[in-house]
């Protein structure tokens, strides 16, 4: 057995001899290339090479069966690649066909099949490919279908165990058997035959020229490979794995199944007792709000849903205060406040304290930490405000998709006047900001949950919620609620500007730089002490090393380690600190809502690995409107 991989043949046409022979070609669902397993090794001939053909034999002439090894010609100026004494690939312009070469083609022994390099993954849900019959050759004994690995490739698909095929000469379907069942019409030159595998119910149907012919096979095993077999000379087929539009409307078929699966999810029986389900959802929302410290919203929500908030209001406000300091880059103040409010917390968690301090060091470099700011260093305004990021679950400054509901609930409770102006300020703020898009590049970095897309509108709305709550809560209004809700777009622009002007270390103040260096030494000492007390900690070591690396560059912001300075990196720190505080109150480290989402995502992944096709039509994102 030899694997021949033919990739990018178009580009490599002039140099086609150099096509690599590999045994591990990669292919994904729609990414099937013309890669074939050479099925019959030439008995007495060396490994077939590639033949350049500058001119042609008659345009559609079939190779005479007695002239063995003559490349088969279909078009002008094509290049022929002989795979075996029986099969060849023909490259013509952008087309590439599979052709049957020589032999008598009289007995089943003359058959030869090729199959795709990779099995159909269950996770794709519905798999489809089409084969165009370029020429039916002498007798049109062609089979199109599926086979498992290890099935004899010297036979047409369908004849052997774990092999399934639809044959052109009689229109029969062959289900692992030498005798076929009447299935559909015959097919011949010019027809396009499609094969669709439904991995949800493990069935397969074929199409002819865009018309579904009905179920051919049921109870299919997993890990089947698309397979095409040819038997008589001159048979030529061309497969389409999605690189060209399909004749059959497979999209429509997939739409049907997507709808079916989603209906199944929607109809899934939940909560037998009345209101139970609703109460649970409300609890989840409430706990989420509390977790991230949206105290006003949480209060309003609790009031309108008749729930009790587990944590005291003051405690929520405290956490919120700390989080906001962290997110604003004012780490020194954050640490101080934490120590004041939760005296023993950081003492018991030296690693956490260390992490906070490392972050403080980074913020010093950035020029945002209060210790360097008070030293008179000029700090760009943008870095005061915490810029809105497009992503959310770990951060209190953002709201997930259900933020809208919270608003509407609160509004219905009678505080509509407070909200009346929000629509307009939203549109002025973040949404219309083009700089926002460039900001999205950082969105794949670290979150506890991988939820890549969040609605910008909601993001900005949650900011509105905060500014609303500022009436009740005594907060740093001057650079938080204002900063984000109203000037975030300015903030972005400033940041872009300042990067162009080249930002300065520690805000440009010499005193600040000295303070930073001094702080660095303290940090180094703390690290050593930690190692003595608690043993080696590679994570800590790396963290410190990365932070110190910033000083090695003249422009830390554009250095390879510069992403540490990105305000988005405050989020994980913030989240860890928040969780630690919550733990001391015997509250969960993660909100149940986030856990449920994580659970659902994991579940889908598990389904994909276990070959349950319906996972293809359900994503967690679908339910985060």
């Amino acid at each position, binding site marked *: 057995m030899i694997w021949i991989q033919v990739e990018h043949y178009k580009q490599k046409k002039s140099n086609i001899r150099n096509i690599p022979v590999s045994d591990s070609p990669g292919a994904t669902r729609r990414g099937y290339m013309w890669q074939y397993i050479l099925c019959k090794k030439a008995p007495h001939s060396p490994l077939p090479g590639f033949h350049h053909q500058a001119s042609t034999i008659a345009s559609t002439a079939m190779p005479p069966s007695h002239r063995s090894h003559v490349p088969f010609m279909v078009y002008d100026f094509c290049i022929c690649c002989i795979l075996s004494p029986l099969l060849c690939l023909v490259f013509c312009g952008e087309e590439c066909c599979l052709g049957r070469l020589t032999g008598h083609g009289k007995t089943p022994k003359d058959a030869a099949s090729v199959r795709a390099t990779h099995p159909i993954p269950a996770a794709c849900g519905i798999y489809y490919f089409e084969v165009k019959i370029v020429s039916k050759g002498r007798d049109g004994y062609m089979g199109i279908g599926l086979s498992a690995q290890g099935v004899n490739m010297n036979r047409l698909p369908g004849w052997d165990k774990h092999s399934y095929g639809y044959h052109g000469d009689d229109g029969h379907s062959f289900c692992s058997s030498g005798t076929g069942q009447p299935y559909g019409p015959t097919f011949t030159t010019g027809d396009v035959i499609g094969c669709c595998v439904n991995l949800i119910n493990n069935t397969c149907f074929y199409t002819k020229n865009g*018309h579904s012919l*009905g179920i051919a096979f049921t109870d299919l095993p997993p890990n089947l490979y698309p397979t095409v077999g040819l038997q008589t000379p001159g048979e030529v087929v061309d497969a389409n794995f999605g690189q060209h539009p399909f004749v059959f*409307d497979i999209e429509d078929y997939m*739409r049907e199944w*997507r*709808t079916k699966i989603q209906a199944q999810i929607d109809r899934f029986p939940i909560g037998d007792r009345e209101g139970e389900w609703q109460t649970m959802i409300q609890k989840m929302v409430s706990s989420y709000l509390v977790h991230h410290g949206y105290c006003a919203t949480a209060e309003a929500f609790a009031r309108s849903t008749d729930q009790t908030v587990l944590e005291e209001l003051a405690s929520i406000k405290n956490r919120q205060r700390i989080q906001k300091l962290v997110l604003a880059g004012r780490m020194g103040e954050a640490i101080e406040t934490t120590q004041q409010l939760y005296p023993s917390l950081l003492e018991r968690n030296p690693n956490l304290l260390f992490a906070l301090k490392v972050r403080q060091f980074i913020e010093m470099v950035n020029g945002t930490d209060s210790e360097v700011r008070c030293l008179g260093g000029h700090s760009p305004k943008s870095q005061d405000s915490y810029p809105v990021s497009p992503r959310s679950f770990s951060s209190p400054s953002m709201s997930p998709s259900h933020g809208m509901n919270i608003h509407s609930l609160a509004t219905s409770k009678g505080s509509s006047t407070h909200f009346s102006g929000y629509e307009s300020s939203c549109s002025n703020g973040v949404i219309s900001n083009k700089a926002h898009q460039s900001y999205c590049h950082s969105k794949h970095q670290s979150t506890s949950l991988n939820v890549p897309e969040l609605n910008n509108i909601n993001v900005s709305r949650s900011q509105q919620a905060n500014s609303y709550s500022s009436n009740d809560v005594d907060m740093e209004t001057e650079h938080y609620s204002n900063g984000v809700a109203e000037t975030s777009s300015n903030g972005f622009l400033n940041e872009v500007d300042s990067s162009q002007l080249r930002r300065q270390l520690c805000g440009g103040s010499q005193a600040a730089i000295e303070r930073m260096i001094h702080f660095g030494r303290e940090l180094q000492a703390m690290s050593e002490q930690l190692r003595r007390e608690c043993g080696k900690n590679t994570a800590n070591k790396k963290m410190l090393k990365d932070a110190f690396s910033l000083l090695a560059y003249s422009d830390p912001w554009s250095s390879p380690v510069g992403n540490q300075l990105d305000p988005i990196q405050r989020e994980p720190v913030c989240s860890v600190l928040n969780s630690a505080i919550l733990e001391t109150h015997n509250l969960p480290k993660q909100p149940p809502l986030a856990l449920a989402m994580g659970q659902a995502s994991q579940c889908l992944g598990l389904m994909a690995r276990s070959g349950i096709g319906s996972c293809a039509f359900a994503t967690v994102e679908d339910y985060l409107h």
Partner: protein
Amino acid sequence: MACVLEAPLRMSVLSEVTASSRHYVDRLFDPDPQKVLQGVIDMKNAVIGNNKQKANLIVLGAVPRLLYLLQQETSSTELRTECAVVLGSLAMGTENNVKSLLDCHIIPALLQGLLSPDLKFIEACLRCLRTIFTSPVTPEELLYTGPDHQTILFNHGAVQNIAHLLVSTSYKVQMQALKCFSVLAFENPQVSMTLVNVLVDGELLPQIFVKMLQRDKPIEMQLTSAKCLTYMCRAGAIRTDDNCIVLKTLPCLVRMCSKERLLEERVEGAETLAYLIETDVELQRIASITDHLIAMLADYFKYPSSVSAITDIKRLDHDLKHAHELRQAAFKLYASLGANDEDIRKKIIETENMMDRIVNGLSESSIKVRLAAVRCLHSLSRSVQQLRTSFQDHAVWKPLMKVLQNAPDEILVVASSTLCNLLLEFSPSKEPILESGAVELLCSLTQSENLALRVNGIWALMNMAFQAEQKIKSDILRGLSTEQLFQLLSDSDVNVLMKTLGLLRNLLSTRPHIDHIMSSHGKQIMQAVTLILEGEHNIEVKEQTLCILANIADGTTAKELIMTNDDILQKIKYYMSHSNAKLQLAAMFCISNLVWNEEEGSQERQDKLRDMGIVDILHKLSQSSDPNLCDKAKTALQQYLA
């Protein structure tokens, strides 16, 4: 005035009718139109919210009078409007009120009212219509029946007004608009042609329908939009090879026939598909290979299933209700599928127990099923091979003959059509059908008022007489009677005439038969032939008639009937020089038979015809550029030389 007469009769039954009610009705008959108007207004105020008063007025016959006033051209618009308002008010009452209004044919009157230029009047009519149509007792068809109403709606801009509702965000609104289009487009080329070009939000209507066919849309929506496209296609507005028909509508309708769908949906799907593919062989071929449709339809006959009987009574009831509908839908679709393609017919007949099912269907109590079964049989009977095999094996002719006894006309038409095919000379059923008294039956069909039945009757007789033995021919002639034969020859329908002539021609074949028939009916036949040749008929009819003459000329004794008839001979001579080559050729056949050498008395006939100047014409024709004519003339001339 009927309504006035009716009122006192009912009054005696109803004792509670108050004098005041009576008074209101009386005022409607006042000669002064102003007083009538005031009366109607007073009546309006009296009936509002008063069900009893409404019932009284209806019993007293107010409705016909109000309708009369509403329709009168001489009534003032104000009066007509007030009448519509009162009628609307009456319709607001009980269901019985609505029924009474419907019995008085209120709908056409109100629809007519919509044509008025007065907006207030139209509004009143619309309100009333709306009230009536929202009542469960009103059959919807009343509004949408026939091309008349389609045209009224169309002329009033229904298409443009309803079109934008298709893109409504409300599913219910979309569905109603869609349904409306399906009734508007049905068998209406004018509406359909307009629909294909209507733009809604920058999209053509067919594209919108195609979107509604998508598989993630609710089934009801898919089915109804498929109907719209089907009707537009059958009305000629969309080509049958258009992708939206071939790749969208047809597959969608096939899906509607699948086991997964509700029984109602399967019935509608199959019926619509049958209609879509009825006349297009390519669509029939595609449908026949799509999703194993032919096998899928076999399932339509399995209701109520044995499972449903066991599991629950409710389901059994449901299945029973739909069983007839399912069967007739399947038969209809089979009939369409097998209409043209021999391979498809073969596939249908090879379906499990197919012939048995048809045979059973022919004797079902439901007329709908019987009709559909006969249609299916008719479609399959177009296959020569099947006539010889499965039709014979299952003795299909037996139940078919039974169906033909006392069946309603619509069944008779299809059944007799089928019989025509079963009587073709190569059909093995021909013999037993004859023995079971078909001649008599077919002869009686030729006397039917129904044109299609007359055609089929005479057609079947014509097939029967083809190369038949003497006895059958005599039976036909006897069964038909000469009067009926001549009646048919003077039928206003050219088809009947052609088939009757065809019958005559088949009867008058082979010499002994010709002589035999001409000896008994010669006079009448010659008369009929003369009449037709003199009448205003098309070329085909005259050609057929000349062919009959040619057959008569082939007889031994029958010849003399022509030779002694100078009038006929002159006519033959005339047609020899006719401008139409077909007629010339047919006339030449006659001459050729008359002058044929080896027969007795040929010399005299040749002489007589020469004297008439026939030979000169033959010489002229032998120079003709038409090779057939030329050959025929030369052969005839050779007879003179020998």
